[in-house]
């Protein structure tokens, strides 16, 4: 599957990790769009919306169908997490948690497809580069994390009032009844709060990205076993069948393990978003 200029193992892997770039403004890298990430992300989001909407339209309080039962299981699970972790009152947070969980999971799920399947089809259709797992693109994970952070800021300001939020930045986590001491620790408080606020989206985005990127990389490394091997070599050479068997076993094991990882990462992203949003709703008036 290596491109013309990319040959060998390094080239194969590099090629696979290359996004398909659409240059909106030629020469300005900021206006590049990773069109493959965007399309697969939207497909995953659309799939989620379509499937859940189909059930929501026919949702009945009577005996549920199998599909409704399955969807209710997911919704009930997410709702339990929201009720446990989020103490504020908001109509947005629970649907947000469901969206994050299902969307991230579906995007992660692309990782379980054979690494060469869709890129090979794309290449037949003349698309040179195609990265099919949106969550292995930092832009996508940061997009989600920043979306959550916008809501964190929004709720911080709405719940605590702009002045209250500003005050909290200077008076937490270190607080003192002594006015002088309070002024003295204010800069440290601000510094700590800035670091904490910055750490939130970065930890959200990098954790998801890192897990999925490394997972994809390992799938690619396993795929290298039979790289550039012709089908006939699988039966005519001695190493062919052995390599193919080893690759199959390793891929299978990593795949099974990865089912856990993609679910866990989707869950963690959802839970951390809930925790951050809950923190935004907490009013500290005990100091």
């Amino acid at each position: 599957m290596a491109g013309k200029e990319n040959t060998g193992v390094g080239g194969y892997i590099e090629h696979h990790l290359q996004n398909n770039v659409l240059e909106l403004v030629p020469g300005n890298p900021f206006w590049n769009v990773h069109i493959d990430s965007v399309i697969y992300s939207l497909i995953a989001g659309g799939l989620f919306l379509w499937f859940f909407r189909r059930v929501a339209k026919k949702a009945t309080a009577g005996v549920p169908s199998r599909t409704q039962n399955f969807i209710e299981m997911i919704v009930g699970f997410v709702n339990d997490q929201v009720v446990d972790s989020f103490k504020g009152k908001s109509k947005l947070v629970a649907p947000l948690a469901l969206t994050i969980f299902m969307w991230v999971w579906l995007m992660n799920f692309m990782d379980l497809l054979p690494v060469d399947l869709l890129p090979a089809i794309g290449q037949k259709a003349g698309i040179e580069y195609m990265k099919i797992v949106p969550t292995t693109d930092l832009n996508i994970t940061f997009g989600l994390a920043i979306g959550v952070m916008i809501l964190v800021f929004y709720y911080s300001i709405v719940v605590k009032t702009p002045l209250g939020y500003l005050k909290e930045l200077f008076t937490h986590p270190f607080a003192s009844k002594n006015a002088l001491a309070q002024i003295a620790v204010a800069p440290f408080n601000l510094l700590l709060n800035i670091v904490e606020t910055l750490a939130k989206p970065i930890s959200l985005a990098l954790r998801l990205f890192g897990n999925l990127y490394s997972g994809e990389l390992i799938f690619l490394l396993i795929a290298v076993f039979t790289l550039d091997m012709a089908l006939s070599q699988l039966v005519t050479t001695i190493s062919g069948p052995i390599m193919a068997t080893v690759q199959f076993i390793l891929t299978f094991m990593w795949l099974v393990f990865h089912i856990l990882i993609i679910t866990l990462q989707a869950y963690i992203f959802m839970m951390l978003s809930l925790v951050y949003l809950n923190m935004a709703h907490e009013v500290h008036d005990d100091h």
Partner: protein
Amino acid sequence: MNLNVTILIQILAFFAVVWLTMKYIWPHILGAMEEREKKIANGLAAGDRAEKELNQAKAKVDTLIVEAKEQASHIKDQATQMATKIKEQAKNDALAEKERQFSAAKAEIEQEANRAKEALRQQVSALAIAGTEQLLGKEVDANKHADLLDDLIKEI
């Protein structure tokens, strides 16, 4: 791996999907779940209530049966008493009637006997007078000898 405008597209898409979920998916599914939960809770409560009511009804039926039995035996007792009383009454009535008829018959017999005696006495006095007249050969003035006659009649 460079960051670019893809982030902005993803942020916009994120808000769009969250908004659609909030508007068109979440309330319907969770609403159905909560409604079903309520229905089940109501059903269970109704079952409990029905059971309780059944037990109450059973207890009520039991007391009613006991009461009815008591009442029945009471009525039976009363009836027996009444029957005894009526029998007694009838017996007494019959005895009284018998007594009355008996004494009436006795009185009549006595009356008859007296009347017969009287008649006999009359006849005897008449005979005595007739005999005396025969003996004396003359008429006896019944009025003159009334005292004598009376004594005679009494003696007979």
